[in-house]
């Protein structure tokens, strides 16, 4: 009788090990980005295995998540802000956070007859153009937009 009990105990142990292995096998393997990832580049590469869907939201409850099918080399363009994300397959992964820093950036470039100003940051800008101390123009400049200008001082701040 004792042998039966020993055998049964061993069986339970093996079953538990099998269960742990099975759960481990189907848990999403989240490789990148790391938790608390922070960058000024909004183009984020997600490397995830054993999951079907990537969910990204700006709140931990994932009340209105953006959902993406997971594929190799999945890159997503994110606006500046703080995000919560997780991978979902048979089981869900841990919730990780990432932050895209907002950047205000202006570039002066040569255009046809003069020069232009480019919004090279990642947020829309209110740009003020001064000639001396006089404000001569106010422009809204979206990311990547270029506008020709002839002021001598150009000031850019987030919208």
């Amino acid at each position: 009788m004792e042998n039966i009990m020993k055998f049964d105990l061993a069986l339970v142990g093996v079953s538990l090990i099998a269960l742990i292995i099975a759960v481990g096998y189907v848990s999403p393997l989240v490789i990148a980005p790391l938790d608390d990832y922070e960058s000024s580049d909004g183009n984020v590469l997600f490397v995830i295995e054993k999951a079907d869907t990537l969910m990204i939201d700006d709140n931990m409850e994932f009340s209105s998540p953006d959902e993406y099918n997971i594929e190799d080399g999945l890159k997503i363009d994110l606006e500046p802000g703080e995000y919560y994300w997780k991978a979902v397959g048979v089981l869900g992964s841990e919730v990780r956070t990432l932050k895209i820093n907002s950047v205000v950036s202006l570039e002066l470039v040569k255009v046809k007859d003069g020069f232009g100003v480019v919004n090279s940051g990642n947020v829309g800008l209110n740009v003020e153009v001064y000639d001396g101390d006089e404000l001569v123009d106010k422009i809204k400049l979206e990311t990547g937009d270029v506008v020709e200008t002839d002021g001598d001082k150009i000031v850019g701040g987030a919208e």
Partner: protein
Amino acid sequence: MRKLMFLLIGIFMISSVCALGITPARTTLDFEADLSRSVGFEILNSGNEDMKVVFSAQGELAKYISLGDTEASISASEGSKAFSYNLNLPSELIPGLHTGEVFAMQLPSGPTSEGSQILATLAVVTQVHVYVPYPGKYASSSLTIYNANQGEEVVFVFPVVSQGEFDLTAVRASVDIYNKLNEKVDSFNTDSIAVMSGARKELAYRWKADVPIGDYLAKASLIYDEGTLNLEETFSVGSEDLELREISVSGFSLGEIAKLEMLVENKWSESISGAHVATKIMNDRGDIVSSFESATYDVDALSKKVFVSYWDTAGVRVGTYETEVSINYGDKSSKKALKFDVKKNKLTIIGLGYVISEDGGESNTLMIVLISVIVLLVLINLLWFFLFRKKFKR
């Protein structure tokens, strides 16, 4: 000669990029009486030039901002450089939003002779926003609606910010939906949520769009402990959608130009103009072996139209090819994955009307069943083990 040199230097300077950046664009804080806090920011030298930058504070909060440095030098080798300013808030500010700005202005550096002078100065701004809570309970919100197709779920999202001194204990929304004739077609109430003072939470509701395709208006009342906010937003049921229904090919002969007639349905209640079909045919490795586009067509509301494409099959071998057919209109694109089975005198299109893509659902279900069975077996075994041991002891 000297004049020409200045001119060349001048052209070189104008052609080169002059750049200045700052991060973050904005720092947001909740008001605390007599708060003293160091706020960090970085100057980005994306042009990789030696430069001098001067800092100044402006705006309503300028008097509470003290700058650590008023001028700084950044060398060409420094991609960015960190700075900070101190924000020393008073004991009181009136409720609402208060703003301030720190300006970073690039000074011309190096020789400033006529020919080499940079023609404009750049300045960038990092903002500071301080929110002072309103007395009592106060909520602010907006309404965002995510469109869906007919029969699917339209998602209504109310991001609620509790801007009062006290927590909001119950925030809910009551929504009425109207069609274009201003007739109420449905109503619903969301669940109630609590939002702590200074926190932001989302109130979300999934509404099944069992209504005809078209545009709708949602009139929402966001009801919280001590007040109501009225919000309105339009949304669409059944996206502006063109769908590929059929592809027919007659008289196909490998090596010649094939005429593909693609039947496209406009499921939208308005006509769609300037649409065209782009087809990409790929080999086993996913490389595009052939691609072609149709002319542009206008498709009337809720009607079908044949888009004609021509495929030059010269050099194409017999076989089965993964094919992506995309219908492009405006800034939208509707894609369909098909397979082209190419034979010498026959082209068979596989995949219209059903999904070709491999579905991992079956294996997932199998794994769930497997885990459930293991759990069940372990539990039964444990139960049996303990019962048996009890009996054995007696």
